[in-house]
């Protein structure tokens, strides 16, 4: 990689700096404009020049020494240099940044041209960019840096992508299809390796002349390198075609799990290609090695995953570094696995998959978002860089083009893949309940893309042991290009043509979640009645064990008791709360949300008041903090909204153009209010055992649940364009968060204070938001809009339109709360 090279060979020439600066200026300039491929790739050349130059002058140590002397000299001689240039001081990080910047700008550019990204997969475009960059470097007469160095690739670029894949691995479909995936990954890869390797050897022998020097073992090694489906390439292409979950997980799972096979075959053949003879003993050792590599990788990953989960149990006081644990532990798992030549990919996958459920329960919502975004960011930058580097490496590498070898490789890869998939599916389908159709088989076979892992493995080969290395590399690159370009580009139209079932874009609804859980238990029950222990039975056992012992150890606080459905419900609540806050109540919420129906529509008319009692939730510290945050930011929004009424502080909100329009404002308030009504319905969270007084509790009760059946929070836009509140105060939805323990007298005082304040406000006839210190709770009472105007008209009705207060609730307090408002 350029960077590494640059490290070893800093040379002194000022033009580098100038070029660098020029490049930076150009990049900044380009950022604003739509990037065309050529234009965007041109600025990078100068960066390449730098590195290339550096590489060229690797041995020019005297030059550096000289330049250093010179600087010293000037220092003693001249006056203190006010401004001096030392590009080499920053060269390495600067160039890394440039590459990353290039990659990010490329990604940005592609998404500005929607038509292009609709036809060509991003991976293809990125390779083309890489080719252009490499070509321009070559044109500039510099040596192309070996960017896709194996160390860089395996230690820096690959882990983020795999961790992202592992952490967000859809466990359920993965485990449901684990047999099929393993079959493809292990047997399929083995078959491919030996089929391709063996036939290639045969072809080489027949062809004679030059190729006949190729021995069997290098051929098999080549076969094992080329046969593995590449997760990076698969991800890049499959993310775009939105194939259904089953096919996605089959191909993707295969690409992840075949790593162990590839690693073992690679080391095995590399080892023996020097020694020559392979005995049956070696085969046995190879099988044992495979088991150790794969299971060892998983074990290492699982250990680190559990450690990460355990650590995250104690991070509640230092939330800022929470996300770091996820990354560091996973990276260490990867490195530890690589140290023993175990499968690093499997370690990462295991680590991510093991830690996720526990870590997610422990860390705060914000940390979770951070983890999510960081993973996505890193993986997408890595992916972009990998494809660009592939292009650059293609230009850089010395090539030994051999028509026979290359074309035979490509054909054999295709043939072996098809035979492998069809043959294996024939066997697998005997055991599968959901059979793989011919279409499915076609997509699985066709989706077997090769990628940068193969290239890097080929790059690792020792030139002395493998005189054919260059030819191998050329063939590997050709195969990668063939799969990524031809297959990658045609798979989308083919999927459409064959009408392969696509992934449904729907987000999971609560009903589906209920029925997922329902079905799990139902099927377990039916299996028990049938009297044989099937999958569901064991899954149930495992879940029970997990709940009983593991969760208790790894999850802090009370949340370990939370069943999946409740956890899902909480997540949904949060999402909605955030959506509501982000939309400011003014922008339409996603239609899937029950935004048009409120609780009163589904509640039976007469509801026992006991329902009101149901919501006595308990939050962990973090959760409470989050709720506060949500409410606080909501409060701020409302404030902004309110301030804008007196025209002094006009809030610029791009979403709301007609901000000054009084009518619009009112309508928004109505919407907000309606949404808050639903919100309050949604935000009913469960109670926790009352025996933990240290825990702060929050109560989110919906006022209209128990009293507003008839009155409702009816807010009807007045034809007079005035905000008209008809609801009595009983109909006012309230969200009440009791931040202190229930016995705390504070809250009651607070409430009284609030009530008085509310009364005062009404006298003033102004909208007002009462905010309290966070420690005591938050209150917010936006009263009706346009109160001043309305005041005269509705003299008698002085109820605040909306009241959301965060104080101690309870039926007795309800009355108290209402008192000041009632005439």
């Amino acid at each position, binding site marked *: 990689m350029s960077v590494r090279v640059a490290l070893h060979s800093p040379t002194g020439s000022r033009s580098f700096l100038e070029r660098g600066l020029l490049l930076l200026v150009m990049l900044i300039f380009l950022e604003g404009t739509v990037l065309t491929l050529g234009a965007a790739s041109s600025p990078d050349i100068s960066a390449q020049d730098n590195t290339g130059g550096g590489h060229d002058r690797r041995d020019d140590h005297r030059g550096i020494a000289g330049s250093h002397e010179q600087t010293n000299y000037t220092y003693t001689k001249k006056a203190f240099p006010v401004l001096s240039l030392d590009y080499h001081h920053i060269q390495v990080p600067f160039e890394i940044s440039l590459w990353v910047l290039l990659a990010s700008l490329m990604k940005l550019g592609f998404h500005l041209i929607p038509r292009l990204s609709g036809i060509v997969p991003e991976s293809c475009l990125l390779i083309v960019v890489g080719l252009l960059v490499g070509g321009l470097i070559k044109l500039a007469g510099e040596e192309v840096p070996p960017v896709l160095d194996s160390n860089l690739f395996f230690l820096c670029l690959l882990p983020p992508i795999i961790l992202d894949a592992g952490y967000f691995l859809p466990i359920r479909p993965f485990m449901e299809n684990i047999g099929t995936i393993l079959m493809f990954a292990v047997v399929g890869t083995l078959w491919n390796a030996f089929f391709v390797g063996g036939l290639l050897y045969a072809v080489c022998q027949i062809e004679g002349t030059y190729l006949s020097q190729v021995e069997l073992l290098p051929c098999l090694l080549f076969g094992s390198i080329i046969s593995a489906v590449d997760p990076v390439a698969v991800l890049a292409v499959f993310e775009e075609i939105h194939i259904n979950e089953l096919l996605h997980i089959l191909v993707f799972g295969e690409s992840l799990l075949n790593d162990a096979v590839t690693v073992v075959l690679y080391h095995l053949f590399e080892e023996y290609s020097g020694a020559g003879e392979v005995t049956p003993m070696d085969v046995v050792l190879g099988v044992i090695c495979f088991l150790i590599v794969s299971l060892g990788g998983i074990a290492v990953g699982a250990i680190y995953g559990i450690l990460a989960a355990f650590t995250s149990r104690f991070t509640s006081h230092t939330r800022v570094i929470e996300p770091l644990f996820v990354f560091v532990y996973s990276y260490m798992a990867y490195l530890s696995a690589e140290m023993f030549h175990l499968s690093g990919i499997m370690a990462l996958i295991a680590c991510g998959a093991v830690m996720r459920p526990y870590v997610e329960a422990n860390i705060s919502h914000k940390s979770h978002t951070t983890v999510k975004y960081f993973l996505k960011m890193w993986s997408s930058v890595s992916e972009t860089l990998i494809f660009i580097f592939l292009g650059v490496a293609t230009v850089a590498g010395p090539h030994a083009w051999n028509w026979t070898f290359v074309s035979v490789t490509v054909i054999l890869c295709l043939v072996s893949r098809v035979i492998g998939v069809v043959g294996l599916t024939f066997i697998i389908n005997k055991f599968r*309940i*959901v059979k793989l*159709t011919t279409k499915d088989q076609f997509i699985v076979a066709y989706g077997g893309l090769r990628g940068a892992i193969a290239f890097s493995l080929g790059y690792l080969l020792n030139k002395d042991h493998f005189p054919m290395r260059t030819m191998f590399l050329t063939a590997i690159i050709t195969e990668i290009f063939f799969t990524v370009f031809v297959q990658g580009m045609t798979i989308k139209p083919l999927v459409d043509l064959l009408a392969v079932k696509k992934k*449904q874009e729907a987000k999971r*609804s*609560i*009903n*589906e979640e*209920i*029925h*997922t859980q*329902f*079905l799990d*238990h*139902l*099927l*377990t*029950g*039916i299996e*028990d*009645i*049938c*009297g*044989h*222990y099937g*999958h*569901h*039975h064991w899954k*149930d056992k495992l879940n*029970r064990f997990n709940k009983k012992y593991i969760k208790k150890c790894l999850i802090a606080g*009370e949340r370990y*008791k*939370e*069943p999946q*459905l*409740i956890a899902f*419900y909480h997540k*949904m609540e949060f999402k909605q709360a955030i959506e509501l806050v982000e939309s400011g109540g003014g922008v339409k919420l996603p239609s*899937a949300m*029950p*935004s*048009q*129906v409120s*609780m*009163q*529509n*589904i509640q*039976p008319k007469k509801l026992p008041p006991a*329902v009101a009692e*149901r919501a*006595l939730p308990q939050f962990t510290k973090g959760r409470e903090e989050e709720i506060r945050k949500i409410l606080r930011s909501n409060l701020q929004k409302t404030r902004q909204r309110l301030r804008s009424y007196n025209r002094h502080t006009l809030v610029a909100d791009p979403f709301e153009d007609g901000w000054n329009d009084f009518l619009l404002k009112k309508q928004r308030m109505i919407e907000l209010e309606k949404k808050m009504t639903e919100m309050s*319905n*949604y935000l*009913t*969270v*469960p*109670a*926790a*055992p009352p025996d933990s007084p240290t825990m702060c509790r929050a109560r989110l009760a919906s006022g209209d649940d128990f009293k507003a059946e008839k009155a*409702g929070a009816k807010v009807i836009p007045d034809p007079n364009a005035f905000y008209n509140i008809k609801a009595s105060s009983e109909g006012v939805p309230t969200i009440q968060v009791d931040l202190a323990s229930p016995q705390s007298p504070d809250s009651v005082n607070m409430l009284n204070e609030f009530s008085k304040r509310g009364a005062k406000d009404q006298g003033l006839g102004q909208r007002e938001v009462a905010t309290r210190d966070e420690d005591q709770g938050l209150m917010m009472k936006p009263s009706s809009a346009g109160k001043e105007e309305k005041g005269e008209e509705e003299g008698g009705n002085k109820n605040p339109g909306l009241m959301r207060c965060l104080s101690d609730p309870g039926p007795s307090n309800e009355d108290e709360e209402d008192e000041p408002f009632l005439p």
Partner: protein
Amino acid sequence: MGASQSARTEHEFQDLADRTGFSLEQIGNLNKRFRQLSKNEETLSRQDLASISALDNNPLRAQIINAFFDKRNLRQNEAGTVQVIGFEEFLMVMSHFRPAAMHITEEEREKLRREKLRFVFNMHDTDSDGTITLEEYRRAVEELLSKAGTIGQETAKAIADAAMLEVASTTRGKMEPDEFYEGITFENFLQILKTFDIETRMHVRFLNMDTATMRCGK
């Protein structure tokens, strides 16, 4: 067993296989299990099913047992429950859990889907009136969470409410405040679980061979 008896069973099984879609081996296995559960009686009672110890931990135990005695699941179009079921009825209920065949047309798939969803719907619709009311839904969710202790019980209502709101809003669209959504009809049920691949998910692996694992479970 005499030869004539086994011949008769064979014939019966063939008949059942035609009607339920099970293979003869599967029917043989299930019959063995049935006899084991019913203690060699011709009929199976609730107590027999309730005595399966593996079911004890299942939050849906009561609902599952009820489903076996629900007339609607016995392919008879009438409501109500029966006290005892014979082997044929047992098979009928079990046949709802058969996996889909490999090559089926869209209509068949849709039919299968409806059948499976109908089974689940019937489990929720305890009073057989064709709608799942809020009360029924709440009870269903409560049962589902009944092993989760107090948290589960408290949240169950909220979850059922949220789910009901979701159903109402997706099926009805906008509703006036004084309108009342009486409950989920089967059509609504189909609609909300549109993306839920029940035809590929609701199945149990029925054994074809008589294996040793058949013995466990009781």
